[in-house]
C-alpha cells in the first residue's frame, strides 16, 4: 500500500508524521522523501545511505545540418521550449517538460533527445525502515521528474510512505497521484484550514481516498473539526501542541521519542486509511 502524507500548507508536520509512522508501523516499510526541493526526512530517519543514483530528464538537441526550419517542433511544444525562426531553431531546455513531441514530429530527424542531469536519489535504511530521498539539483526549476524517479522506488509489497511536497500544484499532484490513500496534515490556524480545503478539492478531483491529521492540536481546533464534519472527512490523528514535541523536532528526534503514547495511533493509520473508500470522501 502506498500512503501519501501531504498537506496544502507547508510546515504543518508532514515529515514529523511520516517519519514517526515509519518507526511505529509493523512489517516492512519504506519512506520516500518526495519533497525534492527541500528533502529533510533524513534528519529524523537518520539512514545509512548505501548508494546514490543520478536523475536525468530528456531534452532536445538540434542538428542544424538536418533542420529545414519547417517549425513543426515549435508548433507541437506546449511550453515554448523550442522555437523555429525560419533559418534558426532554438531550444530552451529549462522550459522543457520532456514530452519528446518535438523529436517525434521532426520530419527530417534533426532533433535528438539527450539526457540532462537534474537531481540525485539517496538510497539507504535505518534498521527496518528503508529510505529513498529525491534531491533536485540547484538551479533546476522543475521537480516532477525527480519526484517520479523517487516514486519508482516504492515497495511492490508492504507499506510505502510518501513524504509529499507542500502546495497543490504539479509537485503535489505528481507525488500523490499513484497512491492508494492520502493523509492530509493540517494545523488549527486559518492558514492551515484554508490550504487544507485546497488540498481536499485537489484530491477529490484525483479521486483519491483521504483522511485528515491535525498537528499542534489545541483549543482552536474546532475550525478543523467543523470543516471535517461538514465535508464528511475522517479525522484520524491528533498530535497535541506540546513544547516537548517542538524541542525534539529541533534536535532531529522522532515525535514518538517524547510522545511514545502516539505509537499505537500511528501504527493503525495504514489499516484505517486502507478502509476508506472514495465514496466516503464525497461531500
Amino acid at each position: 500500500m502506498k500512503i501519501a502524507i501531504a498537506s496544502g500548507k507547508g510546515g504543518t508536520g508532514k515529515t514529523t508524521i511520516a517519519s514517526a509512522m515509519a518507526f511505529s508501523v509493523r512489517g516492512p516499510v519504506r519512506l520516500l522523501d518526495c519533497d525534492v526541493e527541500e528533502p529533510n526526512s533524513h534528519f529524523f530517519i537518520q539512514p545509512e545511505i548505501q548508494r546514490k543514483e543520478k536523475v536525468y530528464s530528456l531534452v532536445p538537441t538540434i542538428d542544424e545540418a538536418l533542420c529545414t526550419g519547417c517549425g513543426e517542433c515549435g508548433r507541437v511544444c506546449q511550453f515554448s521550449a523550442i522555437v523555429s525562426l525560419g533559418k534558426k531553431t532554438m531550444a530552451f531546455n529549462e522550459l522543457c517538460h520532456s514530452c519528446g513531441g518535438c523529436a517525434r514530429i521532426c520530419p527530417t530527424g534533426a532533433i535528438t533527445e539527450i539526457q540532462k542531469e537534474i537531481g540525485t536519489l539517496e538510497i539507504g535504511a535505518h534498521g527496518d525502515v528503508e529510505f529513498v530521498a529525491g534531491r533536485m539539483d540547484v538551479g533546476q526549476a522543475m521537480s516532477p521528474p525527480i519526484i517520479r524517479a523517487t516514486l519508482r522506488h516504492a515497495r511492490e509489497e508492504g507499506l510505502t510512505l510518501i513524504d509529499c511536497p507542500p502546495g497543490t500544484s504539479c509537485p503535489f499532484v505528481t507525488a500523490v497521484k499513484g497512491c492508494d490513500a492520502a493523509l492530509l496534515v493540517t494545523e488549527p490556524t486559518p492558514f492551515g484550514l484554508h490550504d487544507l480545503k485546497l488540498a481536499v478539492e485537489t484530491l477529490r478531483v484525483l479521486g483519491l481516498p483521504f483522511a485528515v491529521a491535525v498537528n499542534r492540536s489545541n483549543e482552536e481546533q474546532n475550525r478543523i473539526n467543523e470543516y471535517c464534519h461538514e465535508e464528511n472527512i475522517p479525522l484520524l490523528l491528533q498530535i497535541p501542541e506540546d513544547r516537548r514535541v517542538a524541542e525534539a523536532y529541533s534536535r532531529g528526534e522522532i515525535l514518538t521519542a517524547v510522545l511514545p503514547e502516539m505509537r499505537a495511533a500511528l501504527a493503525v493509520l495504514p489499516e484505517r486509511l486502507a478502509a476508506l473508500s472514495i465514496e466516503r470522501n464525497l461531500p
Partner: protein
Amino acid sequence: MKIAITTSGSDLDAPLDSRFGRAPKFLIYYTDLGTYHVQNNEQNLNATQGAGIQAALHLCKEKVGCVITGNCGPKAYETLKAADITVCTCAAATVGEAIEMFKRGELEAIEEANVEGHWA
C-alpha cells in the same frame, strides 16, 4: 521599416509598457508611411511560461525590424537576436514619444538582455 512598441493602449498617445513578453499589445508602426496597426498579445499575457519567446516569434512572423520596450529578458532577447530584430529599451511615457526618439536616432540597440529571466 516596421517597428513594434509594447503598450497597453491602441494609439500613439497610449503609454509605453515596460514589459516585453507580457505587454498587453504591440503597436506596429511603419516608419516609411507613418501609419500603424495594433496586435493583441493577450495570449502571452496569461502564459505560464515562455511569454517572451512567443512574443518574439510573433514579431518575427510580423517581420518587424526593431522592438522598442522597457525591459527585455534573456530568452526573449536571444530569440529576437536570432530573428535579426534589434531591441531598443526606452523610458518614454507614450508610444508616440518613443517613436519620435527612435526617428531622431536617440535610441540605442541593447547588446544583451537588460533584466534577468523569471526562472533565475
